[in-house]
């Protein structure tokens, strides 16, 4: 058993693995090869009308000669034609755009669902489960018609649930009270942020 040979083999193995990961990363990154482009805008010239040319080339090839194909003018006029064209290199990340928009829409959707639950469903559930009399007992919201003031309090009857759930409920109730206070300051009494 030769330790040098083992080290040699190990070294080879590591190199092969790195090479493979490198190739994988390259194919992944260049998957969206249409995310780079060179856009050349050429104005009308003599009797040729204006045109826009686009190609997926890299920055060093982003000039009139590489992108404008087929060239509408002949040899002598190519330079004059190209002088008027404006070529710009642009890149974007379509993956980022897709992920961002979908993430944003899902967060917005969740918030809307929660809002609908808080404002519409919960008082309906509460009324159906416990009848009208419980609503009158809500004390500290004189004149405040917010339905979910003590709703959760009434809904959570059992105290024998494990600690975690109780804590979450208490935290949620505390949050609601805070939001109510904020709402009173901002919307009703116009004390802050008017």
């Amino acid at each position, binding site marked *: 058993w030769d330790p040098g040979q083992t080290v040699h083999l190990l070294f080879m193995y590591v190199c092969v693995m790195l090479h493979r990961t490198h190739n994988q990363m390259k194919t992944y990154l260049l998957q969206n090869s249409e995310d780079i482009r060179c856009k050349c805008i050429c104005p009308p010239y003599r009797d040729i009308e204006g045109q826009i040319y686009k190609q997926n080339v890299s920055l060093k090839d982003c000039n009139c000669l590489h992108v404008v194909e087929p060239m509408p003018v002949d040899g002598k006029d190519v330079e004059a034609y190209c*002088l008027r064209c404006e070529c710009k290199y642009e890149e974007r990340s379509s993956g980022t755009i897709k992920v961002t928009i979908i993430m944003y829409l899902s967060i917005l959707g969740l918030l809307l669902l929660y809002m609908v639950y808080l404002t519409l469903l919960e008082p309906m559930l509460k009324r159906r489960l416990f009848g009208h009399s419980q609503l009158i007992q809500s004390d500290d919201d004189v004149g405040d018609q917010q339905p979910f003031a003590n709703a959760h309090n009434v809904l959570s009857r059992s105290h024998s649930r494990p600690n975690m759930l109780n804590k979450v409920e208490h935290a949620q109730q505390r949050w609601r009270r805070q939001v109510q206070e904020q709402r009173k300051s901002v919307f009703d009494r116009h004390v802050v942020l008017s």
Partner: protein
Amino acid sequence: MQQFISLSYKYIFVMQFHAQTQFSLSDILKITPFDDVLTWSGVSAATPTEEMNGAGNLMDFLDEPFPDVGTYEDFHTIDWLREKSRDTDRHRKITSKSKESMWELIKSLLDAWSGWVVMLLIGLLSGTLAGVIDLAVDWMTDLKEGVCLSAFWYSHEQCCWTSNETTFDDRDKCPQWQKWAELMTGHAEGAGAYVLNYFLYVLWALLFSFLAVSLVRVFAPYACGSGIPEIKTILSGFIIRGYLGKWTLLIKTVTLVLAVSSGLSLGKEGPLVHVACCCGNLFCSLFSKYSKNEGKRREVLSAAAAAGVSVAFGAPIGGVLFSLEEVSYYFPLKTLWRSFFAALVAAFTLRSINPFGNSRLVLFYVEYHTPWYMAELVPFILLGVFGGLWGTLFIRANIAWCRRRKTTQLGKYPVLEVIAVTGITAVLAYPNPYTRRSTSELISELFNDCGALESSQLCDYINNPNMSRPVDDIPDRPAGPGVYNALWQLALALIFKIVITIFTFGMKIPSGLFIPSMAVGAIAGRIVGIAVEQMAYHHHDWIIFKNWCRPGADCVTPGLYAMVGAAACLGGVTRMTVSLVVIMFELTGGLEYIVPLMAAAVTSKWVADAFGKEGIYESHIQLNGYPYLDVRDEFTHRTLATDVMRPRRNDPPLAVLTQDSTTVEDVETLIKDTDYNGFPVVVSRESERLIGFVQRRDLTLAIKNARQKQDGVVSSSVVYFTEDAPQLLASNPQPLKLRRILNLSPFTVTDHTPMETVVDIFRKLGLRQCLVTRSGRLLGIITKKDVLRHMAQMMNQDPESIMFN
């Protein structure tokens, strides 16, 4: 004499606290003044748990935080000196412990580096959120007009990115992106399609703004408005609990996108500052160094504000200067360096997300470098005057409208108000192509110069067909009919924007005002620029133009006039100076244009200041009655402390506690009957010599604590503030020692101190109250509210508008 020495020590020591002085204190203060002058004897012992990086139990964040001694109530001002002294105590303890073991040394290094870690995290999160906001706004704004069929998450420009069907004349059209009318009925042109598009545009705008205001109302009412006036107040020492909370952060981000996409005349820069400060607050809670000390927290918030402006404009240096000039109250050099770092990290993060696909940070980055001429300073100064006048008009009109919203029935229907304003905006904005698109795109188009390849109406110049110049150096050309048409539409857009922004800023959705002001200025500037350009072309033989404008040369750049106009209007409204110029030239990359921008900014500030000293943010602070003592106001009246102090002649006498003869019951009655924030402690009611000052909240908590924990403390127990217990009979119940909550060095002035000095002391030291003595005997008290009311009275404003303490 003793008091004068102590006062001057405190004065000099706190000068070190902020960057407004040039003293070198190590010469004057060979001793550390903290021990002698500011003895909070036992406070550092009383706050036992000063954990290093207080990660704590993860479940504890669900528990209600127990208010301990040294925290502040909502809507109160902090005690800057106490916070500074506590931080120094903490630092000294860590430094002394670090010599003990290797682990303590590592902990001390971590403590030193925690500031930088917080800045890094703030930069990363703000940059990410700004990138998300930009991408989402881009998409949702286009959603009002149509949708991309191949991939619904692409905006108009992104959808047509890869298409090969774009032509030179219809650069924006491609078959993958269709307007709603075309999608629903199949017709792209015609009156029916126009009406259907119009209707759907208004419908989408109403839907977005309704969602925004509902979310704000249900989840986080503090997320409305711009946020900068409240952040200014918070940074000066005010506490608004929940204003920088997690729900406020989430709702502000989500609803900002909705509000901007709905086509309302508002921007996202001010709300981005609020978002960045929320991120700052969020990361402060990771380290006890910042979460337990309100003074240190405000240092972090100043830096976070800089990061916010940095990502809003793509202007890191401008962001730091904005934080220094507009937002922060105390800005020591350490904060400058940290703000720079936070702004840098935020800008870097935003660039790596790359929301605009061209490696720029802001939508209106322009790249021309044509020179300007000295004779053009005349129209630039005129634009500056316009900016100042518009700023004054806007501030007065907006404050009047906000006051009406605050006091009359209009304030009772916030949701209806938002929907109504959105409806009016959408209905009036759609017909005019310059108001139909988003304001950022409008500004971008106005800032850009017309090359030979532009196809917009604004660039419809009559081209010389034999012209073969390269695209950057187009000589002045006569305007075609498209340009005159565009001028009409721009003039209408200007009037519309001027009027509608007054009603939009201050509604109950996140709203900023940088972009609308810049839009107003850009439109005015472009109109002036085109006028000057045409005059120079058609009358090139006039004396003014003959010197600098040859026919066939590129003399006038209307895009530059638009930039100058935008700077002038923004300066007129916010009264920024240096930060404005730096932001503008970071936006445009044109260092050649610093002089015109400076000229316009200075002119607009002069003109606007002639009508009223306050910018829009200070005016809103005044409208809300926040206790903000502005460093810019000068107090030049000859009143004395005795004119302002309370109690006045007909008031009941000052409520004091004695050193060792008040009972627990007396104290509780005093707390219940009055609503003062603190009480002076004197030796006895006869001699009235001052011992110290005790805060109401500390008193309440200490007595509650004592009743629960200590045995033998009943209502008739005597409360004493001395070091040793008073001599009492054995039959008396056990006395209660409250020396640890007593501030033994309250600030005092004599009754003949001029108010000028008193105001200066309040401003520079961040005091909340100051006691007035004569010959060592306590006469009265001056609070910050009294100072603000007095200043308002001296300036003939309503002193009753100061609401908070």
